Each structure stands twice: as structure tokens, then as C-alpha cells.
């Protein structure tokens, strides 16, 4: 079990440092501290800025972190299962079925994306877009996306499909060992919304399938899960902030609602310029107060 050790506001890039693989469930406190410290030092140009977590004694995040771990594993299980359906359709040459399974399967991944991003090469292997990696290394969902939508075929994708399923299974195995603490939750929630701001809102994520709204919604849901878990502590520390975040989630969902279509969402291409802008502004309106959830980590 993991308790908060350091009250860093850990930048996204440092998630890797905050997530530590341990061979067993036991904590190697010294090791964790060192990893986090050196990460922060690098980000600050070598200056170690350490804040002992003395003031956080009152806050107990045990329940929240354990529940989040359970959520991550649950999402991961579903992700593997849905990816399997998807890759089977690809290999069976069922173009339309594969197209239909693509976006819903990805949502399980998008809800826990920062966790996956922290796990080394897994994120690029699963989720790299065409120009994110060298052409020879490109694999994963978006390679198949290009075939399914641009080339309108499943041909030549069998190997990529097999590899994708293996990568998904590897992710499921590795998340078991991820150590989760409160600062990871806080940072992860903001990171999920930043994902939306920087690639989903612009329509760059799903450039062939235009299923960006699925990713958009999943990222928001992933952030909301964290907010729900931290809500009791947040309400104690800053009730107004807790209320504001809740209202802004509701406002964003209301803004997204008209774009629902059946079980899924309309093509991102169907959105008008001003609709995209409004979604983006609602997202910013939510992310701003959400980024202050770190207040529960003590001063």
C-alpha cells in the first residue's frame, strides 16, 4: 500500500519518476524518494526543491489510491478484451466491423492514458500517430486506423493486429505493478485534460477515422474518476473549489451531449468551427480549477 511521500506538483514528464515498479507490493521508501527527487531536480535545472509532506498527515489517500488502482485494472481488463475483438475483426478481414470496434476499444485506454504513458515504450507502441515515431517503428492503433479508413482495407494488418494485442496484454501486466500515490492522481487528472487540449480538440488524434470525440469523452471521464475519488478530501480542504470543478464537469458534459450518436459520437468532421471552439473553452474552464486540486496535498 502506498502513502503520500512527497508533495511535489509532478509535471507530466515526471510521472515516470513518480511511478515506480516494485517487485512486490512492499514499498521501498528510500528508493521511491530518490527517484522522485532526482526527477524534480532535473526539471528544475539541477536545483533540488524538496517539500517534506509533513502537513499531509491529516489527509489519508489510502482509499482513493486503492480505488484508483482497481479502476485502472478494470479499464485495462476491458481494454484487452475489446482490443482482442477489434484485432480479430481486422485479421478476419471484416472492415466494417473493425471500423465499428476501433473507437470504443480505445476509450478504455484513453481513460487511463497517463498511466500507460508512464510505462516506457508502451504508449508509443499502442498509440503513436504516424509522425510521432520513425516510420519503421510505427505500429499500434493508428497504423491500423490508416489502413481501415484511408486505404479502406484490413489487408496487410494481421501482424500489426497481433502485435497490438500483445502490447495491450503487456500493459495489463505492467499496470499491476504501478505504484499510485495522491500526487500522481492530481497530476494525472490534469494530464488527461491536457491530452484533450493538445491533440483531441484539434482533431489531430484520429486524423483518418475522425473519432476524436470518443477519445475526448474518455479522457474527460478518466479525469472525472480521479476527481470523484479525491472529492471527499477536496471538500474538506476547499469546498468552493470542489463545487466549481463539479459544475464545470457538468457544463462540459452538457456541451458534449448534442454530439452523441447512438452508443457513440458523431464524426469530428461534423463539428462546426464555433462548436470546436466552445468545447475547447469549456475544457479550459474545467482544467483551470482542476489544476488546483493539488491543494489537498498540503502546503
Amino acid at each position, binding site marked *: 500500500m502506498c502513502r503520500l511521500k512527497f*508533495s511535489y*506538483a509532478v509535471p507530466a514528464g515526471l510521472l515516470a519518476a513518480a511511478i515506480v515498479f516494485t517487485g512486490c507490493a512492499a514499498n521501498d521508501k528510500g528508493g521511491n524518494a530518490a527517484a522522485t527527487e532526482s526527477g524534480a531536480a532535473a526539471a528544475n535545472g539541477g536545483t533540488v526543491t524538496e517539500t517534506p509532506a509533513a502537513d499531509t498527515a491529516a489527509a489519508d489517500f489510502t482509499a482513493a489510491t486503492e480505488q484508483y488502482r482497481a479502476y485502472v485494472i478494470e479499464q485495462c481488463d476491458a481494454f484487452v478484451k475489446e482490443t482482442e475483438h477489434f484485432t480479430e475483426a481486422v485479421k478476419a478481414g471484416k472492415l466494417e466491423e473493425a471500423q465499428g470496434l476501433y473507437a470504443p476499444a480505445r476509450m478504455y485506454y484513453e481513460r487511463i492514458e497517463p498511466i500507460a504513458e508512464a510505462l516506457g515504450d508502451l504508449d508509443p507502441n499502442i498509440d503513436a500517430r504516424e509522425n510521432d515515431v520513425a516510420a519503421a517503428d510505427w505500429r499500434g492503433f493508428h497504423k491500423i486506423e490508416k489502413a481501415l479508413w484511408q486505404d479502406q482495407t484490413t489487408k496487410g494488418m494481421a501482424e500489426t493486429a497481433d502485435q497490438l494485442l500483445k502490447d495491450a496484454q503487456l500493459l495489463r501486466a505492467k499496470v499491476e505493478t504501478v505504484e499510485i500515490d495522491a500526487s500522481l492522481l492530481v497530476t494525472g487528472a490534469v494530464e488527461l485534460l491536457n491530452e484533450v487540449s493538445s491533440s483531441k480538440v484539434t482533431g489531430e488524434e484520429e486524423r483518418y477515422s475522425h473519432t476524436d470525440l470518443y477519445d475526448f469523452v474518455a479522457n474527460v471521464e478518466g479525469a472525472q474518476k480521479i476527481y470523484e475519488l479525491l472529492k471527499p478530501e477536496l471538500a474538506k480542504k476547499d469546498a468552493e473549489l470542489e463545487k466549481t470543478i463539479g459544475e464545470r464537469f457538468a457544463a462540459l458534459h452538457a456541451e458534449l451531449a448534442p454530439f452523441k450518436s447512438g452508443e457513440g459520437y458523431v464524426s469530428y468532421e461534423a463539428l462546426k468551427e464555433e462548436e470546436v471552439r466552445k468545447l475547447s473553452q469549456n475544457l479550459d474552464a474545467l482544467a483551470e*480549477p482542476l*489544476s*488546483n486540486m*493539488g*491543494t489537498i496535498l498540503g502546503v
Partner: protein
Amino acid sequence: MSKQNKPMDEHIQNGSLLGKKLNRRDMLRLTGASGLGLLLGGSAIGGIMGTRENTPSSAVALDNTGGDIIPFHGSHQAGILTPAQNFLVFAAFDLTTVKLPEVRKLLESWTTAAASLTSGKLIGDANDNLNLPPSDTGEADGLQPSRCTLTFGAGPSLFDARYGLAALRPAQLADLPPFAGDSLDPKWCRGDLCVQACADDLQVAFHAIRNLARIARGIAVLRWTQEGFQRTGAADPKGSTPRNLLGFKDGTGNPEVSDNAEMDRVVWNSSSDGPAWMAGGTYMAVRRVRLRIEVWDRSSLSDQEATFGRHRKTGAPIGATDEFAELDLKVQDKSGKPLVPPDSHSALAHGDGTVKMLRRSYSYSSGLDPVTGQLDAGLLFISFQRDLLKQFIATQQRLAASDRLNEYMVHTGSAVFACFPGIREGGYIGQSLLG
């Protein structure tokens, strides 16, 4: 030299200035206004493109230190009579909330932030907490206040059905009527609220708008912004008349800001002018005027001068040699034609000489027009007046109808705002309206 200046000149000449405790701002204003002899005459009245000096911009040249603080609190808002700073970042906001208490909360939060921003202090109290994003974005940390002013106003749309304020809308606060030749793009028009940020440092001005927009998230969003500049004090230490992007001296006919009675006549609303909440406030007209500079650059000097009615080099009326010579529209050449063409910008802006407004415009450059590959550059015209109809609209109708300059410009943006009365210590922006 106008009659208002003489006492000041004598003041300085007598040396009595030294005996009085004047603050730095007074000193700047006095020297800017009369020590350098740059004041307007009584004749030239401002149009969109003035051609002669105004007091505010001349004073700019004298302030190179960037260290001055312009008080945020007072009976009128700063950034109106304040001598024009080097840079402008103008922002129009749209409210996204439908709740009046949230609008009030935003203006209260902006008030607190504005007091910090204009005095060079960091916003908020979470600037050292490692667990939180800093409450101030930090790019102005350690910079001088740079005479930063923030001026707030309400657009006509604030008084629509959303907030129950319709009964408080001043009759004159409405979208400007269409003017001949307008080519307005909605993306440069209107706004529920505006903030005019001016400073002698562009980063300081940008920082202010950026942070106010951040504070507004969830309540209001940026609708449009425009950065503006004029020549800096450092580039023109003598404080001579600034030139617009057409190369002509600009800033004509502004009334004297140190003349309180004149400001009460031209700029400030009195309690009898309209709704009581506007007493001490003023109306702002904003026009984004794109200049067809490529076309202008191909016209002969004589055409350019006939367009303005003035000589380019000196700024003097055509036929005169002194920049500050009276604009005499009756002077004729040998063939009996007026030397200053009646449809020149100066002649039309002058009109019958009775209508004044306080102009505080900045040049802008916003990259390329992707369609033509030409520069999108021009003027962000800003004027303050007590009465939009009698002052700005009357003048602009005259200019739009026949100004020779119209060939070289197109109005692409338009907005009007009611600038709130000054903010007293402990009060908040717009308090007289929102209670």
C-alpha cells in the same frame, strides 16, 4: 499654442515648478504638454487619422524608466487621460455564465488582480506552493510596473436578456450604425466586456490580459484581442509627434487632458447625462482600421498630402510651414481653389471645429492577409467621449461619406463600451452598475 498651455509655460519659466511638490506624473504631463511645445492648437479637431500631436503621446517620450506606477484606484479609471503608453493589448470578452452573481464575482476577482498587475506585484498567494500551478503566470515577475493601466468597460450585449440589466442600459450604448464603406468581420466586433491594457512594456501588457483571461475561465472567454504599438519613448526621446503607418504625424486635436473643465465637457459623464451608474465613466469607441499600405505606398507625395490636407514632413497644413499652424480652410491658391482640399482628412475631421473627442489609438501589425499576401496592418482606433452620437458617430459619418483617405483604409472591426467610473479602494469594477 492653446490658451490652456500658457499658464503652464509660465509656471515652468518662473521656476515655480521647483518650489512645488509635484510628483513624477505631474512633471511628465507638464513637460510633455508645454515644455516641449507640442500641444495642439485650438483649431484641429480629431478624426480617425489625425495629423498633429496630442499631449498624451508626447509625454510618452519622456518616460524611459518604465518604473512608474499609475494608481489603479481613483474617481475615474486610469488608461483614459493617462498619457498613452508605448504598447496596448486590447481584449474583448464574452460572458459564458448566465448568472449575474458570477459576473459580479468575476469583476471582483479582476479588481483584486488589476491592483496587483498595475503595481508590478504577483497575483494571488499561491506562487510558492510546489503542489499547485502558480497563481501568477510569472512572465512579468521582476519587471517594472511600466505604467501599466487596465481600463474596463461593458458592451451593449451585457444589457441583453441574460442578466436582467436591460433597464440600466444607457440609451446611447448600442452597436454603432453602419458607416459607408464598412467591411466589418464579426471576429473583430463587439464584446460583453472589454479590457484595455496599456504599458510601456509589451510583456507587461500581455501578462495582464493573459492573467485576466485565466481568472475568467468558466465565466467569460476572450472574444477578440488586438495588440497595438506606437513609437517608444526610447526611439523618440524628444517626444515629437508620432507618425501613423502611412508616415504622417498622427494624433490631432486631442483636448488637453489636464484641463478638468474640458475633460468634464468632452470625456466624463455627469450624473445628469444618463443612468446614474455611469457618472464619472465614459464611452469608448473602438475601430479596427486596416490600412491599405501597399496601395498607399504607390501614391505620389502630392496625392498623399492632398489626402491628409497636410505636408508629410512637417505635419503643417498644406501651404503652411508650422506643424501647429491653424488649419485654415479658407486659404486659396492663385486659381481660387482651397489649399487644403475640403475632402481631405484634416478638413473633414475638423468639421465646424466644435466637436471634440479624446483619441488614444495605436498602430497594429497582425501578420499577413493569407488571401493577398499583403500586410494586415493599420490602426486600432480608440476614442473616449461623453456622448457617442454627438461625438464619435457624427464625426465618423462625415468621414465615411467623403474622406479621401477612405481609398486607403477599410474598417474591419467595431465595438463600443461603457467604461465604468473609477474604482475606489475597497470597491470593485462596475460596482455602480452591479451593486
